[in-house]
């Protein structure tokens, strides 16, 4: 049996462990800001990554196309049934929109919490050791992406930007265990019922919406959207649907379980919502980022 560790190796190992602990402590301190070397590494690796990922997305896209073509007939039948109601709804929507513009004109209010400028981005990678729900997208500060902006797919909200470098951004998905991840949301019903999305129940795979006033009449099946009152997200991004309502631990406020509208696996194209109104640091930002002043566009 050879000696397991020679003296020299033992010293290298010990020094290694010390350096490791020091580095972990150093980088844990401030994970939401990347310093210049980190930014450079992220941008360079991100560029290489997108060279590999984009062809992969193309291939998976092809396979999915073939897959959808196989059940086109069934789908077509189903969609035709829905199309009839759709036309009526479309007409109503156009009417309501026109009415909205007119009324806004009367009260002389131009700004809208709902207005946002979408930035299209491609998902280039997902954190391979999936302890944290993080994805990396190929747009960064040069494209206008900033920390704490809402990220969504066509189906609904999926997360928010937690770190951005000039050419990449890291997005934390809403299905995270991180308890600091809050979204100011509201349940759409007869009235607007405000609350906060706080936390994710891993076993049932549902979001938990807390701090709903107990006078609110929240029912199963109601839609939940972002309220825009958190300061950074625009209003009206679909989050999900209420599946269960109960009271919180102290019985003072209501608590609702929400089934997310978006799916979090096989993400490829996402949209970042850059809201047009003034951005302030509220619940959406976890009161962490610096307030952006009056930089409205």
């Amino acid at each position, binding site marked *: 049996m*050879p000696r*397991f560790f020679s003296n020299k190796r033992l010293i290298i190992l010990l020094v*290694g*462990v010390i*350096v*490791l*602990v*020091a*580095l*972990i402590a*150093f*980088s*844990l301190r401030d*994970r939401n800001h*990347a310093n210049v070397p*980190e930014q450079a*590494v*992220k941008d360079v*690796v*991100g560029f*290489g*990554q997108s*060279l*590999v*990922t984009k062809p*992969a997305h193309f291939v998976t896209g092809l396979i999915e196309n073939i897959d959808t073509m196989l059940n086109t007939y069934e789908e077509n039948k189903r969609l035709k049934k829905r199309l009839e109601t759709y036309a009526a709804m479309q007409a109503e929507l156009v009417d309501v929109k026109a009415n909205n513009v007119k009324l806004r004109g009367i009260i002389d209010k131009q700004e809208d919490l709902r207005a946002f400028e979408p930035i299209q981005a491609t*998902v*280039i*990678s*997902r*954190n*391979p*050791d*999936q*302890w*944290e729900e*993080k*994805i*990396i997208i190929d747009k960064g500060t040069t494209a206008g992406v900033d920390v704490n902006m809402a990220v969504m797919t066509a189906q609904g909200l999926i997360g928010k930007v937690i*770190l951005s470098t000039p050419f990449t951004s*890291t997005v934390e998905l809403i299905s995270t*265990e991180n308890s600091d991840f809050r979204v100011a949301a509201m349940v759409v019903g007869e009235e607007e019922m405000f609350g906060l999305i706080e936390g994710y129940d*891993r076993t049932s*795979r549902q979001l938990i919406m807390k701090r709903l006033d107990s006078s609110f009449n929240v029912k199963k099946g109601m839609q939940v959207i972002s309220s825009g009152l958190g300061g950074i997200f625009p209003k009206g991004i679909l989050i999900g649907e209420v599946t269960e309502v109960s009271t919180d631990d102290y019985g003072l406020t209501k608590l609702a379980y929400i089934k997310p509208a978006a799916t979090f*696996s*096989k*993400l*490829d194209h996402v949209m970042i919502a850059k809201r047009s109104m003034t951005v302030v640091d509220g619940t959406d930002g976890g009161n962490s980022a610096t307030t952006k002043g009056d930089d409205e566009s």
Partner: protein
Amino acid sequence: MIRFIIPLIAILLFFLEPIFSLFSPIEINGNLYVTVPRFLIVYLIFIATYYTSKRAIIYGFVLGLLYDMYHIDIIGLYTFMYPLICYVAALVIRQIERHTVTVMVLSVVMIVLLELLSYFFASVIALTSIDFGEFFTSRLVPTMIANSLFIVMFGYMFKQITEKRFFQKQAGF
């Protein structure tokens, strides 16, 4: 030519891992199974076995550092774990026969070790709150199965490439 192929494959695997993790978690019968792609470490173990362990440790260190900076934002986890796994693999392989199958089995064992280490660190710095039982069923076992498939598919190719480079180096290139 083959001189550049060894690091090129390592870089390619480094870029392939996050693409495969986009398909995870997999849902079977309403349960979610997380499969973590560990392609790079398998390749590094083959390098450590058939080429030189020193080279494997250097690649492990550099790519581990990139992994930490790009994906995890905590520097020091994979920078430490990749070289450590390569070192342990090199120590073990010295004691046993270098048959392709034994190296494949060793790779699976090392992936388990890496997963355990990664679970340990994630619990210590509070990235996760799952208990060991759940970690074992929903993460460790699916990861082992998925990576075993990868090893069976590509293990022999890795052996051919690394061994070829080793003989080339012995011949004095």
